[in-house]
């Protein structure tokens, strides 16, 4: 009998341990996913911050450039660089036939003319001389150099020919290939060529959308929260508003995209693909988040503050505006930042209002067509070229960096400025 009891007890203790283990492994799994996730993004993305350059000797032959003696700055500006650019690439292999010369040309980006031109504009005395110029390598060679491109594939399945690889290896052996920090990733707009594509346009698009979103959502949400928390009578109507807010907070984001499409674009005829429309759509989405945060922090202000102000003869409006609202501001602000961070990562509604258009200029105002960072991720992820994979990961890293900064900022505001009442 006693033994039976002991067995039962042991069984129960084992069950206890098992249950505990389930919990631990659940936490472990969640954290494991997070780690794999972040590791994967970083390991594919870090190489995008480096860019491969080919160092090619260029002879600035005045005749080929159609330049006369002692050319002025304008002449240099208008000169023809295509021939010398082509020639300097072809000179990499003196025995090259016509096809091979073409392949040689495709080892650098189509931007190489411009790079040679800038070199001469910086130093006009180079005419007639030869200088080694840094040229952006094509994205395929860039990937080869970074080791992301499988070289052992059969040639017809590769975008890089054996010939190009041979010349490239010669260049590498002569240390004429260099990897430098990729500034153009941050300063260029989007491009169809992976080696030239940058995030400047989508970054500005995101900034403009977020600013529009902040300017609309913050005042409206704070005023609404003040009304609901401090002035609203308890009746059916305010209950209805409350249900609306709580429900809106859980409506799928794509529905807001349909709202933007059906109302802002179709009825109000606002310009398509612009951060203005994007910002308005996002503001409707963040509104409930900010209202809920602002109400919570208004509720956290102890009634004694209000009572003291009222006792000193302040009106209800004065009490609210002079005491309650300022004291609730830290909580409201950190809620706002978290709401904006959500809006910054939102993609689906922006796709519906046309912010997926290919934009190769950097927008200067909220009325110019633009993409946004998450949409840029989507656009690049859908492109087939191998060079875009690391760009996507790098763009994700920039976006995550932003979100983390915003969330930290929200935490700091909350911890530094919020008063603890107790």
């Amino acid at each position: 009998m006693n033994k039976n009891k002991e067995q039962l007890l042991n069984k129960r203790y084992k069950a206890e341990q098992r249950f505990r283990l389930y919990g631990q492994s659940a936490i472990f799994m969640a954290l494991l996913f997070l780690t794999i996730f972040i590791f994967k993004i970083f390991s594919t993305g870090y190489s995008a911050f480096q860019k491969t350059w080919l160092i090619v000797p260029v002879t600035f032959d005045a005749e080929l450039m159609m330049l006369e003696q002692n050319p002025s700055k304008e002449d240099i500006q208008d000169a023809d660089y295509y021939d010398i650019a082509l020639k300097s690439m072809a000179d990499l292999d003196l025995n090259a036939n016509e096809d091979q010369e073409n392949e040689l040309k495709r080892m650098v980006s189509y931007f190489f003319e411009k790079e040679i031109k800038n070199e001469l504009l910086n130093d006009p005395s180079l005419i007639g001389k030869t200088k080694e110029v840094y040229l952006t390598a094509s994205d395929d060679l860039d990937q080869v150099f970074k080791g992301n491109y499988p070289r052992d594939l059969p040639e017809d399945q590769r975008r890089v020919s054996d010939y190009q690889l041979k010349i490239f290896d010669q260049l590498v052996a002569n240390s004429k290939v260099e990897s430098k920090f990729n500034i153009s990733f941050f300063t260029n707009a989007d491009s169809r060529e992976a080696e030239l594509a940058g995030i400047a346009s989508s970054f500005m698009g995101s900034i403009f959308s977020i600013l529009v979103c902040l300017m609309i959502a913050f005042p409206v949400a704070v005023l609404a929260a003040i009304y609901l928390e401090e002035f609203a009578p308890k009746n059916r109507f305010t209950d209805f508003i409350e249900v609306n807010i709580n429900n809106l907070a859980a409506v799928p984001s794509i529905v807001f995209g349909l709202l933007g499409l059906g109302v802002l674009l179709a009825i109000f005829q606002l310009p398509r693909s612009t951060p203005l429309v994007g910002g308005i759509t996002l503001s409707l989405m963040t509104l409930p988040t900010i209202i809920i945060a602002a109400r919570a922090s208004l509720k956290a202000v102890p009634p004694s503050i209000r009572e003291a102000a009222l006792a000193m003869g302040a009106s209800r409006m004065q009490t609210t505006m002079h005491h309650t609202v300022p004291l609730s501001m830290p909580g409201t602000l950190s809620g706002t930042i978290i709401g904006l961070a959500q809006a910054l990562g939102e993609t689906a509604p922006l796709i519906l209002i046309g912010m997926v258009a290919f934009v190769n200029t950097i927008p200067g105002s909220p009325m110019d067509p633009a993409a946004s960072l998450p949409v840029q991720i989507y656009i690049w992820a859908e492109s087939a070229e191998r060079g875009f994979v690391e760009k996507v990961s790098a763009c994700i890293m920039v976006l995550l960096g932003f979100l983390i900064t915003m969330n930290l900022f929200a935490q700091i505001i909350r911890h530094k400025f919020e008063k603890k009442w107790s």
Partner: protein
Amino acid sequence: MNLILFTFIVLLGFTSYYFGRKKAYTIQSTKKRLTALPQFYGYYLAIWCAIPAFIIFSLWAIFEPTIVKLLVLSDYSNQGYLDDELNLIYEKTKALSRGQFTGEITPFIEASAEKYLSLRSIAQSSKVVIVLSAIIASVAYAYKRISSNSRTREPVEKFLNAVLFTASLAAILTTVGIVFSLIFQTIDFFKVIPLFDFVFGTHWYPAKAFVRDSSEALDPSMYSDTFGAVPIFAGTFFIAFIAMCVAIPIGLMSGIYLAEYASSKVRQYAKPLIEILAGIPTVVYGFFAALTVGPFLKELGTSMGLEVSAESALAAGGVMGIMIIPFISSLSDDVITSVPQSLRDGSYAMGATKSETIKRVIFPAALPGIVGSILLGVSRAIGETMIVVMASGLAANLTLNPLESTSTITAQIVVILIGDQAFGDPKTQAAFALGMSLFLVTLCLNIVALRVVKKYREKYE
């Protein structure tokens, strides 16, 4: 132009505030008692400046386009044009006046464009004159009216209260906007496609509706067997189901562990770390699912002799499940912590172990809250867009095999509406009809879930 005017009016508002306060100070200096603080006199004047400006601006915004259009088109009124043709002429006129017209420019349209431009400039300048004179008149009237014993605080506070109230209507307006933007397109859609075909049809090929010219726009036979939404609804719930299979066990167990077992140190670090998963943008999950998980599952399947699509429902659903873990874990954590301690103590006193207490006492007590959090998770899974768009297929297959690709409501909306869309086309309207069904389904889930959670909270407060 409008911006300059707006800035000017704001400046006028500040000046009237300044003058109002100054008048109050002068009254005060004559030793008379004021009935409100001096700045209220300022606010009072500023409001008298803002209200007429606001009214005139909104009236103009509403009526100017209609009136201008009426006047421009009055030239064409007795030439027997149809309404649609008149609209087209007006659009051409506007495009020409903006210098964006590409096409044949007829003298008629050129004349209209000139008329349009001159009308616009007349309207613009008369707006400036009317706004400014209205502001000056109203501010002057109010300035005259204020004296030592005039009431200024009450009207100012009433005005502020009205502003606050209007702001609180924004949430209702948004909901109305959503319903409004969805309902008309949806009704138009169901005029062409019978509701029955939409709800019970099993073939979804919206691309079929693409190839047609405008003359046969309303031929319903073209669309039969094109917009049957069953495969999409099935795909949506199927992917959501896979997601919940991942999210519920992991989320619930981590919630329980964090609430009942974890030391405060573990809790302090593990909780925010898990919540990071909720803060990662969904497009990033989509990329992860499409680039890493999909190919990985495919390879794994091939090594086991299974045929796995690179865009399998399993990849999309699994990654979506990871995304939902934190929603379930933090909500159920909250719910479990709010179960009163006395219930636990009672169970321990009877000799129950911790896990027995959790399973037999706390879990049943917290069940409504947990169900609520799961329902919110389901609603999130159904409405999730980017993961499905990027990682799941775009062709609507009716299948229950997680290794094949399926499509969802949200993915179809994106597929249909990406790029240019023509309103009035059944294909575009189909996207809105799908949006409407998505909105209704999530609305029901949300309302039920919020009710359940609220009821639960009230029980233990």
